[in-house]
């Protein structure tokens, strides 16, 4: 598939855009996209930021694991156990390669939230002296500071609030500007010698704004702080090389990157994972257990207690390979084109306002908006009536919504399988929202 796509791309459109034939081929890989909704309307799925649809290769990989290879991994001397273990570890390799790291740096987690919590609780345990001298670098307490941002998903905010509450550390944060971009100009003021952790999102799940990661990493290194990146929104949509970005930890989920639910990955720089004490303890993560005490397995197994979500991990590996074959440059170029179309669509409808950057620079095809005089929930309902699926609410980012003085927004997000025609349907449905609620264009409600 890659070679055909590449050849076509060279001659077809500038910027490596998918042409109609290629896009149709991609869409054919996703069985759900061809279903219809109430009244026989075609589905226009613009909610990939919440969860993506799954290509057949992912569904097949999970099914194939159960049909052909199912056995307990990392134990048992029989052939099935070997094959299951190989499939599980091969998936880890695929995911690791996909984000530019080595497989010993990838810990399976149940989702990205679990990955971020893992780091926060490991720091707690280190603070209590677990992990010995090597883990002391993770210890945190009174006088220390944790820095997050106002743009965070609750998953990269609440675990740090809790860590601060448990340890006496202080939580501070970087604000966002009027476009919803994190105030990088405030880094030097907020990130100081007291900062032990700088946790921030690679791309906002509300505004779509992409964070200048290397600038944040540079400041964190200057003060000796650990960096924790929420990469949930970036990994499915951009080429991401975590080693090149230089972050210490990064969490992302399978289900947003065309993979299954119930699985995510935590990247940790090898040296850090080796020094970090375990969090969830029990089976599979040990070396020697006596009645008195236990020694722990090296990472990543040290952080994978209990039976793992093997088939989902295999599915996430297949998703990584699928995206890699499409080529993340091509995916990003396609979505950049859709970003422009989405922004234009929203801008063309009177009484609709974007929460986030209105330019296409350093932003994803994630467009949150408010319709004057109509609550987001009602906006979503009218769009749904046209077959258009968008997310409504606070998108697990209440502080960011509060910053913009709104309780809820509607949010359209595109993915590699999104088409221009779908955005046109979205635009037309959006244009009918204020009319439906009896608000004439231009009036204030």
């Amino acid at each position, binding site marked *: 598939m890659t070679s055909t796509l590449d050849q076509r791309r060279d001659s077809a459109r500038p910027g490596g855009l998918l042409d109609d034939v290629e896009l149709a081929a991609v869409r054919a890989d996703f069985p759900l996209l061809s279903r219809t909704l109430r009244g026989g309307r075609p589905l226009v799925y613009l909610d990939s930021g919440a969860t993506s649809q799954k290509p057949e290769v992912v569904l097949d990989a999970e099914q194939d694991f159960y049909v052909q290879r199912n056995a307990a991994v990392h134990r048992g001397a029989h052939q099935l156990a070997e094959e299951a273990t190989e499939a599980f570890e091969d998936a880890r390799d695929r995911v690791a390669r996909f984000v530019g790291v080595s497989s010993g740096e990838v810990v399976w987690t149940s989702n990205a939230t679990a990955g971020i919590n893992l780091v926060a609780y490991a720091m707690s345990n280190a603070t209590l002296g677990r992990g010995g001298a090597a883990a002391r670098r993770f210890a945190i307490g009174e006088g220390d500071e944790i820095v997050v941002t106002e743009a965070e998903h609750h998953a990269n905010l609440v675990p740090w609030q809790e860590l601060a509450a448990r340890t006496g550390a202080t939580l501070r944060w970087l604000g966002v500007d009027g476009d919803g971009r994190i105030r990088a100009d405030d880094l030097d003021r907020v990130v100081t010698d007291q900062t032990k952790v700088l946790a921030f999102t690679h791309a906002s799940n509300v505004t779509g704004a992409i964070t200048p990661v290397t600038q944040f990493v540079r400041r964190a290194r200057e003060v000796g702080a650990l960096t924790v990146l929420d990469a949930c929104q970036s990994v499915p949509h951009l080429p991401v090389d975590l080693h090149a970005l230089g972050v210490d930890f990064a969490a992302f989920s399978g289900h947003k990157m065309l993979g299954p639910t119930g699985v995510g990955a935590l990247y940790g720089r090898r040296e850090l994972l080796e020094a970090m004490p375990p969090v969830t303890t029990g089976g599979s993560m040990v070396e020697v257990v006596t009645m008195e005490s236990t020694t722990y397995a090296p990472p990543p197994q040290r952080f994978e207690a209990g039976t793992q979500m093997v088939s989902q991990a295999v599915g996430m590996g297949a998703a990584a390979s699928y995206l890699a074959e499409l080529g993340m440059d091509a995916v990003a170029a396609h979505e950049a084109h859709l970003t422009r179309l989405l922004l234009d669509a929203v801008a063309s409808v009177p009484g609709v306002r974007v929460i986030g950057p209105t330019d296409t620079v350093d932003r994803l095809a994630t467009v949150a908006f408010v319709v004057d005089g*109509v609550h987001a929930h009602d906006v979503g*309902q*009218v769009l749904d*009536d046209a077959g258009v699926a968008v997310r409504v*609410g606070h998108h697990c980012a209440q502080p960011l919504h509060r910053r913009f003085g709104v*309780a809820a927004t509607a949010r359209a997000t595109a993915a590699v399988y999104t088409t221009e025609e779908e955005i046109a349907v979205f635009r037309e*449905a959006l244009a009918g929202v204020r009319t439906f609620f*009896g608000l004439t264009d231009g009036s204030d409600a």
Partner: protein
Amino acid sequence: MSTGSMEQLYQQVILDHAKFPHGRGLGVAAADLRTGESHQVNPTCGDEVTLQVDLDDAGVVRDVRWEGQGCSISQASVSVLHDLVVDHDLTAVDDLADTFRALMQSRGAGLDEDAEEKLGDAAAFTGVGKYSARVKCALLGWVALTDALIKTGATRTTEDA
């Protein structure tokens, strides 16, 4: 654009109540009334309502006041609730609340004629039952009312018996 299902969901009654809600604005009741207050949020969408209910010694609801923000369904539902329950006793209010819950669980099929007559304007919410994600919007105010009534400390006559 619409196929008619939107008109069924957003009945004119609902749109009117959403635009010009009744009973809005919190306050303080007369000294001889018992007031209960409840704040309810719908954490998935951030809709919220704070509702105060005043009961007299005879167990009659004398007033309902509320403040809130949210979608048209949630806001209109509290407004309609206000009109329905004021001047009714606790038994009748409980019955209305139960009937409205039953309407929401009817998946858009509606209830019998007697029940719908009893619900008055609230029967306009029948179509909401078809959209499971919206049922909790319509129920937000009713949940607040039930909680606020408990907080008045009043006991039902049926429970006393």
